């Protein structure tokens, strides 16, 4: 072959670009990407850390077993700053990456509401942990829930308080965000059905520095039991301490935030003797115990719901993509919804047509700082 300037240039150009093109092709094919929106900064940054740890444990497991569709699975994360605008921004950053096949959304209902329009537009499955019942019932097929929703939490709190503890007059303390309001409605509705009544409804804004007015209102009401929906660890800890200081010793059944590691540590003795519902409880099943073992190998914190749902979400998602044999969004969704009897750390996943995977809760007790499993209440309707 005669060397001309043109052929030389062509060859040079080819030799320079070919490796880059080949690399790009390999990179696109190499892994299956899952996007994750989580708080790295802001008031919920601690829970974000737990969530990431849970997801990573599941990811390791999946990858060690050969990955998904023969490829390794990779997590791409974005910080939601614990705010709704932050969550929307984080999700749109992830959604702009076409090779991400599915997402892990937020554990906070309010943030999932904020992201929902973009999720609908993106049209890929988003596994999330928020418990506002409305999220899976607003016609957005891509929202798939990995924790029992608050219609169950309300029923479990009500039935435990009324039927097991025999208390009928309730004071409900709740955050005024989407989660807290959803919880209030669910618990009030459940109480109405089984003969309990709400005698004090006390909403508070997140990050309150003082709960004296709330405590005094409970004290002066004739409530004989407290039900609660708190969003942040420091809020529940401050409330618990002021409650005890002002001499209120009523039994207290709380939403899952009452038994998460952070709150138990902050509040100390102020939360001893309280009951909580927990989607994750170590002693509730062999799968939950296995997760606890894996978790304690990589972290010195105890596993809780923050890490358990992301662990289960990655597990279910990987199984579903394998089952679908494709990364096409509609096929992944159909495969997730067809899952029956998947035994995760939080319980047994049986997805319904709305995308709700779990239908019951564990009741646990805080015994001097230790969270003890009491019983599991499952609903089939």
């Amino acid at each position, binding site marked *: 072959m005669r060397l001309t300037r043109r052929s030389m240039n062509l060859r040079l150009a080819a030799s320079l670009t070919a490796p880059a093109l080949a690399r790009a092709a390999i990179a696109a094919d190499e892994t299956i990407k899952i996007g994750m929106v989580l708080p*790295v900064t802001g008031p919920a940054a601690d829970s974000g*850390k737990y969530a990431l740890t849970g997801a990573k444990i599941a990811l390791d497991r999946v990858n060690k077993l050969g990955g998904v569709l023969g490829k390794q699975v990779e997590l791409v994360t974005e910080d939601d700053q614990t705010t709704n605008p932050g969550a929307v921004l984080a999700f749109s950053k992830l959604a702009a990456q076409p090779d991400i096949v599915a997402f892990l959304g937020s554990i906070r209902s309010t943030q999932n509401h904020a992201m929902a329009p973009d999720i609908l537009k993106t049209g890929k499955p988003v596994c999330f942990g928020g418990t506002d019942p409305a999220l899976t019932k607003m016609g957005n097929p891509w929202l798939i829930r990995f924790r029992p929703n608050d219609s169950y939490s309300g029923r479990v709190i009500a039935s435990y308080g009324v039927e097991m503890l025999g208390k009928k007059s309730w004071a409900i303390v709740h955050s005024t965000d989407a989660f807290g309001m959803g919880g209030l409605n669910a618990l009030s509705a459940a109480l109405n059905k089984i003969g309990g009544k709400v005698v004090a409804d006390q909403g508070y*804004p997140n990050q309150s520095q003082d709960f004296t007015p709330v405590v005094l209102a409970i004290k002066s009401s004739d409530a004989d039991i407290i039900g609660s929906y708190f969003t942040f660890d420091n809020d529940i*800890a401050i409330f618990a301490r002021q409650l005890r200081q002002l001499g209120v010793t009523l039994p207290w059944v709380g939403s899952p935030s009452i038994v998460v590691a952070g709150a138990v540590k902050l509040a100390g003795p102020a939360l001893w003797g309280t009951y909580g519902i927990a989607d994750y409880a170590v002693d509730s099943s062999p799968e939950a115990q296995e997760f606890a073992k894996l978790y304690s190998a990589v972290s010195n914190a105890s596993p809780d719901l923050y890490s358990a749902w992301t662990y289960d979400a990655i597990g279910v998602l990987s199984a579903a993509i394998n089952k679908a044999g494709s990364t096409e969004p509609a096929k992944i969704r159909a495969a997730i919804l067809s899952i029956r009897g998947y035994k995760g750390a939080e319980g047994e996943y049986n997805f319904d047509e709305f995308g709700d995977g779990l239908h019951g809760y564990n009741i646990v007790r805080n015994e001097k700082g230790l969270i003890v499993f009491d019983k599991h209440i499952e609903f089939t309707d």
Partner: protein
Amino acid sequence: MDFFLQLLFTGLGIGAVYALVALGFVLIFRATSVVNFAQGEFSMVAAYLMVVFAVDLGWPYWLAFLISIAGMALLGAVFNLFVYYPLRNRTYLPVLISTIGASIFLSNSVLALYGPQPQVLPGWLDTPGFQLGSVYLDSQYLIIIGVTIALVAFQYWLFEHTLLGKKLQATSQDKEMATLLGIPVAAMIMITFVYSAVIGGIAGILVAPVLFVSIQMGSTIALKAFAATIIGGFGDVAGAILGGFAIGVIETFGAAYISVPFKDAFAFLVLIVFLAVRPQGIFGERVAEKA
């Protein structure tokens, strides 16, 4: 009545914290004509220093306190050198943005260094509090109120009865005139930053056993303290103190007697009323611009 007294006590306690942070705002504003938006972060950093020394390293509380305060003095000096000093001859806006930047930098640095979990800092006293009649007095709140009153007294003495105080006042009133009179203005501003960082730090350490130690503890307090300074009349020490107590009491009573969900709104409602009716604040001078 018991209900009322209990609320009054809590309101004064939380108000004292706002007052202490507001004091830091006012001092720096007087010296530099700029609002320091990192004032809340001073409280947060000091609380974390206490957690490191008193909890993690297990040193005696008083020693941890002294070292934390020394650390805050150092932070105040560094803050002055890097955040304020390079921009001292510019208008207030670049300096303001600089302090906002510093605030984000401080909170994210602590987040990166210490991690996001809220921490527990034990109180000064072993007794959490005691019952007086039907009112429960949280010992930490008693300390907060006591220290606030003591610091206000100290500040009054400093500004009104010492030469240093007079120099600081002269600097805040007219830097050029103060320079002509031989007052080392740069040093005075340095002292102001150090002192404000220390006061903010004391507020953080005092409030930590009540509110726990978290990255965002500073900003939630600072926002209310900022409202307190405006109500009191920006630049007025007595006004900031009164404004702090007023906001604490008003929001607590508003929450109890009107609505808990609107608790945070009461502070800002009062703020709006003041801005509309008496923009110069309770003790503010009736002039638009300081000479």
